Structure formats: C-alpha cells, structure tokens
C-alpha cells in the first residue's frame, strides 16, 4: 500500500484526535504525560465537548499542556489550578472545566486550593498525575514519594519520621461530600491505559451532568528523575508505587446519591 492510500480515511486505523495539536511534545521518552494527554483528549473529542471545554495546567512538567491540547487553556500558578478552575467555572457554568496537575502541585503547595474546591463540590474534573517525584525541578521529594525513596532532597531515602509520610490525597478527598468520583489508575500497560481512559470518560460524564468534583489519579512514572530507563521506571511503578497506591475506584457516585 502506498503512503497516499494508507492515509485515505477509509484505510486509517489510527489517527491523532483533533483535540491534540500536531506538535512534538517536550516530555521525556517514556513519560506517562503524553499518554494521559492523548487519552484525555480522545475522551474530550468523543464526548463532543471540545468547543466548550476549558483546561487549567499549573506549574510542573505539564504546565506546557496548552501547547498540545487544542482546547482553551489557562496556565496557572503553582498549586492554584483548582482555584483558577473555580473562577472559570463559576462565571461559565455551562462550560466543562478540568485541571491537569502533578503531585507536588496538587498535594503539596496546592493542598488548600484542592481540598476547598473539592469541599465546595466545584463541578470540575481534576486529572492528577502522581509519579512520586518532582519532574520539572529535577527530582526532588514529592508529598507522594514513597517511604525510603531516594530523591535529590532525600538523598538517604525519605525518612518518614522527619520528612512525613507519602500522602494518599485521593483517599482524603473521597471523604468530602462535595466529591462525586475518585479513582486511581495507571498508564504503563495497554490494558491499564484503556481502563484509565474509561475512568476519565466517567469523570467527565459526571462533570457534564453537574455531579460535583471528580478526580482521576494516574500513578505514573518519571524515568529521567528516577534515573531509570522507561522500562525500569514502569517496573518501579508496578512493583513499588502500585502496592502502596492501589489502583481502582475510591469513590463512585452511588455512594453519594
């Protein structure tokens, strides 16, 4: 088959969603961000909401998300995505608003904004990437770094007695009545990618129905800052992260309704 034939619409078996811009991403090889960007934007396209979706990307590796996602976007200050999203949603209640945040952003510097937006039941969806380490600033300890985990700021391992415990913020948020849906997923295996996509779809569907705050945590990797190959970093996610951050739904709407 010639190239011309291959790209004919009838013969296409794979295409980029129209909601992703055709530019190379800056993410490191093997990083989970690009996968999550893709499935999120596939869902946005499939749900037909691209024309009324507004995203918020705060500080972290994904602060550049607006270069890739072809929906209206706001870059936000570190930790403030849920407050920015609140501002947008309150003046545009008919629009679909999501945030895309890392663990440092959501569970360290932005804890207050996250918890209070959840507690108000802000009708927004949070995509929360938990890779247990700071990516953009190159490998410092995150609130979600595992006990004993070596990072540039815990060079002898995270000592929970002095540095605190890895934080399961999704479980904390699930306790709040304003929260409709909390789930923890991963994207280091094809089957898990499909499940994660289903969860994102579920969260955005609840969002469209106005059911309150929804959050999809994605346990992901960071090969560059874990100083691992992409495959090693996926094995780390599988063998170290997931036993602590167990995958599955933490709260589903039937529990609130």
């Amino acid at each position, binding site marked *: 088959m010639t190239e011309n034939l291959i790209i004919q619409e009838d013969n296409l078996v794979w295409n980029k969603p129209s909601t992703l811009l055709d530019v190379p991403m800056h993410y490191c090889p093997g990083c989970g961000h690009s996968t999550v960007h893709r499935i999120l934007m596939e869902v946005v396209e499939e749900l037909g909401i691209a024309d009324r979706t507004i995203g918020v990307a705060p500080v972290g590796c994904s602060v550049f998300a607006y270069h890739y996602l072809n929906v209206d976007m706001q870059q936000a200050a570190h930790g403030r995505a849920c407050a*920015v999203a*609140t*501002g947008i949603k309150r003046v*545009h209640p008919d629009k679909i608003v999501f945030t895309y945040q890392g663990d440092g952003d959501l569970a360290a510097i932005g804890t207050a904004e996250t918890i209070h937006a959840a507690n108000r039941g802000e009708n927004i969806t949070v995509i929360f990437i938990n890779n247990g380490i700071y990516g953009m600033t190159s490998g410092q300890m995150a609130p979600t770094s595992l006990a004993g985990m070596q990072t540039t700021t815990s060079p002898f391992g995270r000592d929970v007695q002095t540095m605190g415990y890895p934080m399961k913020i999704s479980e904390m948020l699930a306790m709040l009545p304003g929260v409709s849906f909390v789930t923890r997923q991963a994207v280091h295996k094809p089957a898990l990618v499909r499940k994660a996509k289903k969860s994102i779809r579920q969260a955005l569907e609840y969002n469209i129905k106005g059911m309150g705050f929804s959050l999809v945590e994605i346990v992901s990797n960071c090969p560059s800052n874990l100083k691992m190959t992409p495959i090693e970093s996926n094995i780390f996610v599988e063998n170290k992260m997931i036993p602590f951050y167990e995958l599955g739904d933490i709260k589903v709407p039937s529990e609130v309704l």
Partner: protein
Amino acid sequence: MADKKLMKGNEALAEAMIRAGCDAYFGYPITPQSEVLEYLAREATNRTGMVVLQAESEVAAVNMIYGAAGAGARVMTTSSSPGMSLMMEGVSYIASAELPCLFANVNRGGPGLGTIQPSQADYFQSVKGGGHGDYKMFVLAPSSVQEMVDFVKLGFDVADKYRTPVMILADGAIGQMMEKVVLFEQMPRPDKNAKTWATTGRADRPVRNYITSLHIQAEKMEEINMRLQAKYRDMEENEVRYQAIDIDDADYILTGFGLGARIAMRAMEMGREKGYKIGLIRPITLFPFPTKIFEEVGSKVKGILDVEMNCGQMVEDVRLSVEGRCPVKFYGRTGGVIPSPEEILEKFEEYFIK
C-alpha cells in the same frame, strides 16, 4: 434623579461593583474591609446574578480572579494589607498574562499583622511592584466615599482598555467612614464572550485560546516585557489624574494622596487663613504618577511638604519628579495614627516659615 445615599466606604464600593455590572467577586474576610463581602453576599446575586464567593484564602481568591478574568468576565476582589501581600503572587501573574481585573486594598497599618487602624503604608506595594517581575498596576487613590464609587467604574474601564490589573488603594478610614454618595445607574453586565482573546471555550474558533505568563525563551520574555512597558508608557501619556487646588499663586505646596491629602487640605486652608500662600496637589493616579505637575511647580515654589500616613513612600516619587528644583519635606504618622491638620501646619511652619 440622582441616587443619593449616606454610605460607608466599603459598602459604597460594593454597591458600585454591583452597579458596574461586575460578573464575579472572590474574596476573603479581613478587617477593615469585610463589609464588602458581607454587602455583596446580601445584595449582589439577587440583583444581577453576580457570583459572590468566599474563598478559603486570599491566595485562592486572587487565583479565582485570574481564572474568571482569563475567561472574559468582569471581576474584582478586595482585601487589606496582610491579605493583599498574599495576593501579590497572583497580581504578578495577572499583570503578565494581561488580565483585566480590579483590586481594592483597604490599607491598614503594618508591617506584619500590624493594626486594623487606617494606614497608607502599602503605597510601595501597590505602585512599585509588590509581586515579582517588571510590572505595574494602575493605582487609584480615593480620598472620599464618593471616589470609592467613582473609581470602581473608572477602574473597570481602565482595566479593560489596557488589559491590566487596576488597584484602588484606599485606607481603613475611607473604608469605614460614612459620607454622602451619588451612585451611578445600574449598568448591564458586559458580554463575557465578547473578549476574543479569552478562554471561553473554543466554540467556532479553529484554534484554542490560551492564557499564560510562561515564556521560557529569554527573547520572548523580553518581548513581553517590552510590550508591557509600552502599555505603561501609554498610561503615563493618557491616564494621569490629579487634583490641584490654589497652585497658581502658591509659594508652597502641600501634597499627599487619599486621606493624607484630605487632611492636608484642611491644613492648607488654615495656613491660607494665616496668610501663607499654600497650594495643594493630590495625585489621584499613583501609577501613572503625575510627574509633570510636580516638575512645573517645583521651579515656581519655595518648598513642598508631602504628608502621608506612612514613613515616607510617595515622597520618593515627588522628589524624583521635582529633581531638586525646590526642597521637598516629608511629614508622616504611621502604624494607624492619623495626623491632624494642626500638626501638619506646625510642621509646615517649622520647615518653611521659621
């Protein structure tokens, strides 16, 4: 017929916000400006559908403002000094991302938790930065409850015209005292989908809009800075406002802003009664500062006395404008103490007459 009322400064400001067609207010209680949020919570949503939300902190409030302003809405927040400090990160982002919005700081005494009494010690914070980076806020200094009303309308217009954050720098006394005000008529809320740059959802646009203050490339960041500076030069050309009283025959000038100027005005009258030819200049826009009028009077008068409720902040801008053409003296009370006209006149005599 004019809508005339006796109102507290904070409540008049809140009423003006509703009437100016504000879409949303996000704020956090702090003395001496909590009446703004209280008044809006009672009045606003029922009357115009305006969003009123008590945020969990000033940090959250300013970021809600960022989000809503970036989504095309007419938005405002208010705070007082310690709360304003918390908002400064957001102000820097807002200035960089060029989002039109309105702030009011009902200034109290500092530093630190300070006092809840009135002060003008946040001049530097408002005019010289406060947040990080090379940015300016357009700063209006009301000296009456009436100006708390008028500057809301003016502030929103300037914010939209220049896509810039505007600050109303009041103080605890202006916020708390009651005066007669003439209110403007209710304006319709503007169409928040009208701003073509705003993130209102892509709709029919082929490409998305985005709001950002991040420019990794040095050259790009410099370009943004040059654009901001050009805008500030524009404001200096076109938006300077001040009040001048009896300066034509004046041998001396009293100056100050907001409440300080209003008290100095009484001192000026008392001085005139004693035969001193005193005039008064009250900068209304603190940025852009009315440099030219000080340049002009600087070469004509024998001296300028600047009165502020702080340890000497605007006096630096007065001196930069006067450039040594005449002596510029300063008198200030601070920490929440309000100077009396008598002590101002006494200082004036001490500096220039005796």
